[in-house]
């Protein structure tokens, strides 16, 4: 099927239809900018939280800053703040481009974004006040999930209208992923909200439910958006066709099928069949990894990604590699003895960072790098394009540190937990070792996200506020100075 031309995906068309970009400009930039703000938030709170493990007495008199609340807030800011905004923004833009139609009802998007951000803010305030749900990975307070659901519905409404404004085109696989992400979010959050808040299931049943919701959000919701971007941008930029729809098909459905099952800890206090089933799913996850990576490998056929000239391609390449590594680590959970060692260590958090920052954030920031200037003007580039490279470098190095430290050192902690007669002080220091090293990585995330926010600001200020903005005045000053110096 790979030879059928998908004309709705402008694979080979260089010139992007300006009308589409113009229709997306306001709403999508709004989403991107919010995403950048939340990313700094997430990284900052994450750094503060990790710092508190090393200096437990720091800011200890204020419940707001206690480790457990910071930890919850950092993830909510990332998952809903950054990932939600960026993901929805990219979804809308990609859907419009793939359908070749301008964004329908942008007003709904703006309203939805406002609601969405209000929901995230409410969640974070709520968590600071002690309203977290107690489900690791889905700490949303109940009122926040309601607001988020409504906000997403507004945005999804616009996405659906855009989609149906033109029917006869073949669907590019990215569209499948985007549709899935739009469906998965209300499905997951709705279930969690319904069964944890409205009609709560009994104690133990909340454990698999919470795990399912947290894992699905990451693997399916984020996974779908991120992969949609990866398989959209890579072929587009290298101007080739995606190698095979069949492989994509396999990867897509297997991801949806398995994404919610995987990674249950072998020691979870649950009936054995559930744990075994989850191990089985983790094993089959290898298929997803193979399907996606083989497909892209065949598409690329020798085109380098990580050393490419094109920054978007580098971002996508890193995202893809991170996704593959995370997928392989998921696959490792097929082996109970591996999981038994790592289950109570920092490793799971490190792998989540790998997925969140290495895969998702990288793919989104790469996509924003491509999309954002085009939204403003067809020939525009980033005002400070050089510095955008540093986002890539900082986050990439951060991810490598976190994963090496997180999984490698956590393995030692896990071994200590598995042996007998280890002193509690030794155990504590083994537990902290990976977090100490990973702290450095988290600081790099923070630096990277600050640059991202700065770049977004530059772009907006310079191009949306006209030539009389502070930014351009400063640039003018600087350029005259430089000229003066040269004389």
């Amino acid at each position: 099927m790979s030879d059928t031309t998908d004309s709705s995906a402008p694979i080979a068309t260089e010139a992007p239809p300006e009308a589409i970009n113009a229709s997306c400009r306001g709403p999508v930039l709004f989403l991107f900018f919010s995403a950048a703000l939340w990313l700094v938030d997430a990284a900052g709170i994450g750094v503060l939280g990790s710092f508190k493990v090393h200096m437990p007495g720091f800011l200890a008199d204020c419940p707001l800053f206690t480790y457990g609340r910071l930890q919850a807030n950092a993830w909510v800011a990332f998952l809903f703040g950054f990932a939600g905004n960026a993901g929805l923004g990219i979804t809308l833009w990609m859907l419009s481009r793939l359908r070749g139609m301008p964004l329908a009802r942008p007003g709904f998007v703006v309203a939805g974004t406002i609601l969405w951000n209000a929901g995230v803010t409410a969640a974070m305030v709520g968590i600071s006040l002690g309203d977290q749900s107690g489900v690791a990975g889905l700490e949303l307070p109940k009122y926040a999930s309601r607001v988020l659901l409504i906000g997403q519905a507004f945005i999804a409404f616009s996405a659906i209208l855009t989609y149906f404004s033109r029917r006869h085109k073949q669907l590019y696989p990215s569209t499948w992923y985007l549709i899935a992400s739009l469906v998965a979010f209300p499905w997951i959050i709705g279930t969690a909200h319904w069964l944890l808040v409205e009609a709560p299931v009994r104690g133990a049943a909340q454990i698999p439910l919470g795990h399912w919701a947290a894992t699905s959000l990451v693997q399916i919701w984020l996974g779908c958006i991120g992969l949609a971007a990866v398989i959209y941008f890579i072929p587009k930029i290298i101007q080739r066709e995606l190698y095979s729809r069949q492989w994509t098909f396999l990867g897509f459905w297997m991801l949806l099928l398995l994404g919610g099952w995987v990674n249950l800890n072998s020691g979870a206090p649950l009936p054995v069949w559930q744990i075994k089933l989850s191990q089985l799913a983790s094993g089959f996850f290898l298929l997803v990894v193979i399907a996606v990576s083989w497909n892209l490998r065949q598409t690329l056929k020798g085109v380098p990604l990580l050393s490419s000239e094109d920054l978007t391609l580098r971002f996508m390449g890193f995202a893809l590699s991170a996704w593959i590594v995370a997928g392989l680590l998921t696959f490792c959970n097929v082996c109970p003895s591996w999981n038994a060692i790592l289950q109570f260590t920092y490793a799971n958090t490190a792998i989540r960072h790998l997925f969140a920052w290495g895969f998702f954030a990288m793919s989104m920031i790469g996509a924003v790098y491509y999309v954002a200037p085009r939204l403003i003007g067809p020939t525009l580039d980033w005002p400070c394009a050089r510095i955008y490279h540093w986002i890539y470098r900082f986050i990439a190095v951060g991810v490598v540190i976190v994963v090496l430290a997180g999984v490698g050192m956590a393995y030692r902690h896990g071994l200590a937990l598995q042996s007998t007669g280890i002193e509690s002080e030794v155990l504590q220091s083994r537990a902290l070792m990976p977090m100490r090293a990973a702290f450095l990585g988290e600081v790099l995330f923070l630096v990277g996200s600050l640059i991202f926010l700065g770049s977004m600001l530059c772009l907006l200020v310079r191009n949306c506020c006209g030539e009389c903005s502070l930014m351009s005045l400063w640039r003018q000053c600087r350029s005259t100075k430089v000229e003066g110096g040269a004389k």
Partner: protein
Amino acid sequence: MNKAPLVFLGVLFTLSLSWWGMVYSPAIQLGGETPDKGDGTALKPRVGLARQGEQVYRENGCYYCHTRTATGGQFGYKLQITRLDLNGTITDSAIGGADKMLPVIKQAYRFKAVAKAADALKTELGKTEGKSDAAIKAAKEAKATAVKEVKSAELNLEKNLKALGISGVSLDKDLSLECGLPAEKNATQKKLVANAQVTITSGIKQWSDIEAKVKKLKAAKARFRLQPVASDWPDRQNLVAMRQSVSRDFLFDAHAMPGVMRIGPDLSNVGGRLIGADNDAYAHIYNPQSTGKSSHMPPYRYLFHRKKITEDEALPTTAITVTIKGDKRSVEPGYAVTPTAKARALLAFLKSLRTDSALPEAPIVEQAAATSAGTREK
């Protein structure tokens, strides 16, 4: 795959498969769990303060650093006799021959002999016709020898009581005194008798090792039990918990929080471990480093009231103290620190976390190191 509605339906269907497996079926299966412990007692719901404490635990995210999941491990068995057969015909071969018979079991047989002799004497004395002095005398002598035998064993009181428990006989006051047992048993002694058991295997055995013995014991109608013993079970051997955590440990939780990481120790049985005074637990939560120990647990000072006190003001009795090198002082010098309602609730919750009673699906497992079955035989 070119029709969005088809993709949409497919997505819904595929998602619902994992939903079925991870949400629906567990909700049905685990939702149907009963609190019955299998021995006539039941797990008790968390009430009052402890129930509120769960919310404090959640609010502050204690579950990021503390798990509540003691994992399972390898275990073997110890074979324990809890009651001898009623007719007194055996157990030698099952245990390993008379010469190998354990002192306590031997003693139990002696107790049985005493009881039998005493019964015989009673029958002789109670006879209305055909009473013969010679027979009575013989019976008395028989009883005296039996009692002497018991005393000659020179076991300590604990072992004697155990032996009495296994023998299954009950001696009256006089006879108890004669045998060197207290006439009135106190509560611990009574417990010792009621829960008496003797281990007849050494070390940790696998089922295949003891199957033959078990059959012999069954044939002899002795009562016995198989006590699981941890053999390669880090969580048990490290005293993390008494048994594996299972889903029913979360039965009454409003929010099940099995925990993320073990930066701090697992808390599944912390209620069984917090044996010290409440004061010490509060002092730990107020400032985990208060005793000078290094700790990376954050202090939860905001869960406490603090009142400044002057140098010569005496510390209120309710104030939380630490004792360092015999010197008892307030956890926060210069202040009287008392727990808020939240701190009290939190402690009540921590105390309610226990896995020290058995469930049918998760028996209490003995810690291998504490089992001195091997040393006992030497």
